């Protein structure tokens, strides 16, 4: 009589033809079972008593490698068990024929270094010793320890905006890398934040992350930053899967809230040891979004969606949770949510001042001349031709908002592009006009401000290097030696500039380039000498001084000239959507709700270049402002909903709690 071979769901079996598979279903019959087995190439149905089906065979012990003739004898075979003795480390000693004459001192030093290099358990963080320019906050450190110890590297960091999720993620990354648990890491962030991530990871954590720009980068660099949109495309997805990253960090992870999107599917399909999802608003529209994010981290922790819906969602309203105590206990396994109120941190106030200047007659003539030139070229060019001039015109218009000194060089360079015809003639005239400008109302205003704020350190921002030189010269003219900070400086020179500013210079003139990671909280006055057409840039500028650790109220001066692009931009950002009232990090969330294909900057330029009369411009910028206002309201609605949900849930611990 034949005995029935019994297998259970989850057992691993071996088939002579299909290889190893896992039993995923069993249908009992009288004399055998029908097994559903998942093999590498698909699911098959098999008879449990089939002679080619058997239990997983024991793996044969690996043979010791043969050493080629004439080489050192092979190291003793390595135990194929739990203990793995690194054969290379033994070989290194085996190949030594005589005792090196290095002396006792070096040997003792070696022993001492080995002892120091041992990693302690996760009860203490190694990474804290290597970070720079970082204020330590208990809630952040506890959050990091919880991710490392309790969540085993898979967690949703859902702190409220401005509490330093990036810092927490950086600390976790650094800790894993220091302990050798992570060798390849990938950070996915929105395009607008890629450089900021790179700068922070490099400067604060000494992690040389590279922004992925080419296809081959996936394999060439172990520490990469890319945008989610780039990573999720089919070609890149395959490449990322092939490279096998140890950890993935997804910033603004609410973009993965929908399980039907390419992004969610892409992250779900990756085999990752560690996964960090960062978002301030994990719930935006309904509870399913939270479920989807948690499922990426630990599938099954909230059961199937049907079970989740039944147990944790109010029937008929998928926005409201029920059984909140049990749900928050489950969420605590994968999620950290620190709120501002729980940290008792005091965030200083912002005092925003708008300094509007009337351009001098020469400056006005030049500004209007350049604007008309830009307008004409945009409206008269064929699309193909326009794409060639586009960047140049954009920069020129922005420079005009910064300083005539900066625009002059671009105008001179433009002569090389527009060599003949009426445009060339106009350019020649504009160059002449720019050369004729002798005074700058904005600079005069700035010098007055520097003079009046005698007891304060002042941080002045501009977008352009030429303007920086112009300001530097002007400030020197009133007998003050400013420190300067720009992208052409080496890392050491940048550190020195910041250090000089901290010690004895009253003024630091800086371009945006490369300063995000450096702490300048000792200063509380920021001057936007020119205004970027990208609110994120403005926010980053302010963020240099208005961040955790700033104890005094800060003052922001926005310089703008009347009836310029910047005047309109400032009107929208300040008066319409009250950008300067937002907490650092919130502007990005607002822009995320502004569902435009083009960037903010493109939209500004498009409006400016395609409308001429003041009335048309006011109307177009007005519409733009309305759109943004709508986006802000949408964001606030999400923020409030998110807040309500987590208030309802009550006890999802933050870094300050356990």
């Amino acid at each position: 009589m034949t005995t029935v071979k019994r297998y259970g769901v989850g057992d691993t079996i071996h088939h002579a033809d299909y290889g190893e598979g896992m039993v995923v279903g069993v249908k009992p019959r009288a004399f055998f079972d029908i097994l559903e087995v998942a093999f590498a190439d698909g699911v098959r149905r098999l008879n449990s008593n089939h002679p080619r089906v058997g239990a997983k065979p024991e793996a044969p012990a690996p043979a010791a490698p043969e050493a080629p003739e004439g080489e050192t004898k092979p190291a003793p075979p390595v135990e194929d068990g739990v203990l793995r003795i690194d054969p290379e480390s033994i070989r290194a000693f085996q190949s030594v024929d005589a005792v090196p004459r290095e002396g006792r001192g070096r040997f003792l030093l070696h022993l001492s270094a080995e002892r120091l290099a041992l990693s302690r358990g996760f009860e203490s963080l190694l990474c804290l010793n290597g970070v720079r320019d970082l204020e330590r906050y208990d809630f952040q450190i506890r959050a990091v320890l919880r991710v490392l110890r309790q969540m085993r590297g898979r967690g949703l960091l859902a702190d409220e905006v401005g509490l330093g999720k990036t810092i927490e993620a950086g600390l976790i990354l650094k800790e894993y890398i220091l302990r050798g648990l992570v060798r390849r890491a990938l950070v996915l962030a929105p395009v607008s934040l890629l450089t900021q991530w790179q700068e922070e990871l490099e400067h604060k954590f000494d992690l040389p992350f590279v922004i992925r720009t080419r296809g081959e980068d996936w394999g060439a660099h172990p520490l990469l930053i890319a945008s989610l949109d780039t990573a999720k495309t089919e070609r890149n997805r395959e490449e990322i899967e092939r490279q096998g990253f140890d950890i993935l960090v997804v910033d603004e992870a609410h973009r993965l809230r929908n399980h039907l999107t390419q992004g969610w599917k892409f992250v779900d399909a990756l085999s990752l040891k560690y996964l960090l999802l960062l978002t301030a608003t994990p719930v935006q529209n309904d509870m399913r979004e939270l479920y989807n994010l948690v499922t990426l981290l630990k599938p099954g922790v909230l059961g199937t969606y049907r079970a989740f819906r039944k147990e944790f969602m109010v029937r008929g309203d998928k926005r409201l949770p029920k059984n909140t105590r049990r749900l928050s206990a489950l969420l605590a396994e994968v999620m950290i949510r620190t709120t501002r109120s729980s940290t008792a941190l005091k965030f200083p106030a912002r005092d925003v001042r708008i300094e509007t200047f009337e351009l001098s007659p020469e400056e006005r003539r030049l500004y209007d001349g350049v604007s008309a030139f830009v307008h004409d070229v945009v409206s008269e060019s064929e699309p193909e031709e326009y794409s060639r001039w586009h960047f140049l015109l954009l920069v020129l218009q922005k420079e005009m908002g910064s300083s005539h000194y900066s625009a002059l060089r671009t105008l001179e360079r433009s002569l090389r592009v527009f060599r003949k015809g009426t445009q060339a003639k106009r350019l020649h005239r504009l160059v002449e006009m720019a050369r004729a400008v002798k005074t700058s109302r904005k600079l005069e205003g700035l010098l007055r401000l520097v003079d009046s704020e005698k007891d304060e350190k002042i941080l002045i921002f501009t977008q352009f290097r030429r303007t920086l030189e112009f300001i530097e010269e002007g400030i020197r003219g009133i007998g003050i030696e400013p420190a300067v900070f720009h992208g052409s400086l080496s890392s050491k020179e940048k550190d020195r500039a910041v250090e000089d500013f901290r010690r004895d210079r009253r003024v630091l003139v800086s371009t945006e380039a490369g300063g995000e990671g450096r702490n300048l909280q000792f200063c509380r006055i920021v001057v936007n000498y020119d205004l970027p057409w990208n609110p994120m840039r403005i926010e980053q500028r302010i963020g240099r001084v208005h961040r955790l650790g700033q104890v005094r109220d800060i003052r922001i001066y926005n310089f703008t000239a009347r009836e310029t692009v910047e005047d309109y931009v400032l009107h929208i950002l300040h008066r319409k959507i009250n950008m300067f009232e937002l907490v650092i990090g919130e502007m990005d969330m607002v822009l995320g709700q502004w569902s435009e294909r083009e960037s903010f900057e493109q939209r500004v330029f498009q409006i400016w270049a395609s409308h001429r009369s003041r009335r048309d411009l006011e109307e177009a910028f007005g519409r733009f402002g309305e759109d943004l206002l709508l986006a802000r309201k949408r964001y606030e609605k999400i923020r409030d909903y998110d807040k309500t949900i987590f208030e309802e849930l009550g006890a999802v611990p933050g870094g300050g709690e356990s």
Partner: protein
Amino acid sequence: MFQGFLRDWLAVRGLEPHVAESDVWSFTVPKDLRERLGSSELTFSFNRKALARNPRAELATVGNPVFDRLLAVAREEGRIGIAFIRPTGAAPRPPAPEKLFPDSDARFGPPIPVYQPIYHFLFTITYPSIEAADEMELVSVDGTTLEVWAQTPDLMELWESLEDEAQKGRTALPALPLTEVVLATARRALERRMRRRIKKVEQTSHQRLEEETASITVYYEQLIEEARNQSRRWTTKVEDREERIRWLQLEWKRRIEEANEFWKPHVDARMVALGIMMQPRQAYPLQTHAKGRRAAVPKGPYRFWDESTKSLLQPACDACGRTGLADARPSPRGGWQCPVCPDRPLEPEGPDGNGAGGEAAARPSAAALTRKKSAR
């Protein structure tokens, strides 16, 4: 700790720190290390408060990238150390061969004072699959008897008590290259010591794997069950349902495999240092009668008498590593082997007829030792 390390690091390179304040040291980096350390001048602070006062200083601690580079330099150098036990007081008088080997058929020559290696292998142990601190494990193996020390000393403390130079008139037997049998003994000893810890790692990993597997299984069983029940809905096609179930089953397998991989218990060991401690001993060469000669010629191998314990050491088999051989016989490799141990293939022959490889090649012939002694 870190200050001591930096002081030693500077001292071995003959450098002096410039002490700006008690907890802040600066020094000029030697030219050959400038590129590696990224600077020609370095400043280290030993406490955080001093760091705040000296913004250009680096915190001297593990995890600081610059300090870690110093550590890396130190870890690449000085991996092997040799030191000698200096006999204290009057050296004990070694017994005459006839007294020491009264019942032996073989004849042994007069004793020769030598140094013999005792190997201290230092391993670092890491536990990547569970949350546990790294450890160091020292395995000390007597190069002659292959006995493993039951009590392991603190290697740094031990080294501090030893001498750099050998005693005059005493020959140090070559300690390198390491023989396979010594390495195998060290490895076995390490494995024995790690047994209990490995068991714990296995238990922890299995427990976590079970928890995770159970969670994944419940999840996918539920999902598959739900997918099956969808057939009642008129909107779902049978093929779609089947396809979904297949996909879920494959996903289930993938998750289980990932969990298996993630929670696979393992402990990593790396040999990071070797301290060779030279022990004073007396070597008695085995004497053989050369053909056509009447006088006995010392040809080896040796039996050793330990001066500190004043006892004759039992040799170990140089083929299988068995220790405490009372009935050892000379091996073709110039050492001893147990009577039951099958001969391993000989290494290519050396000029003196002994095996040229392994231990035999590393040890000087008895004649050479005798010559040295007479020269003195």
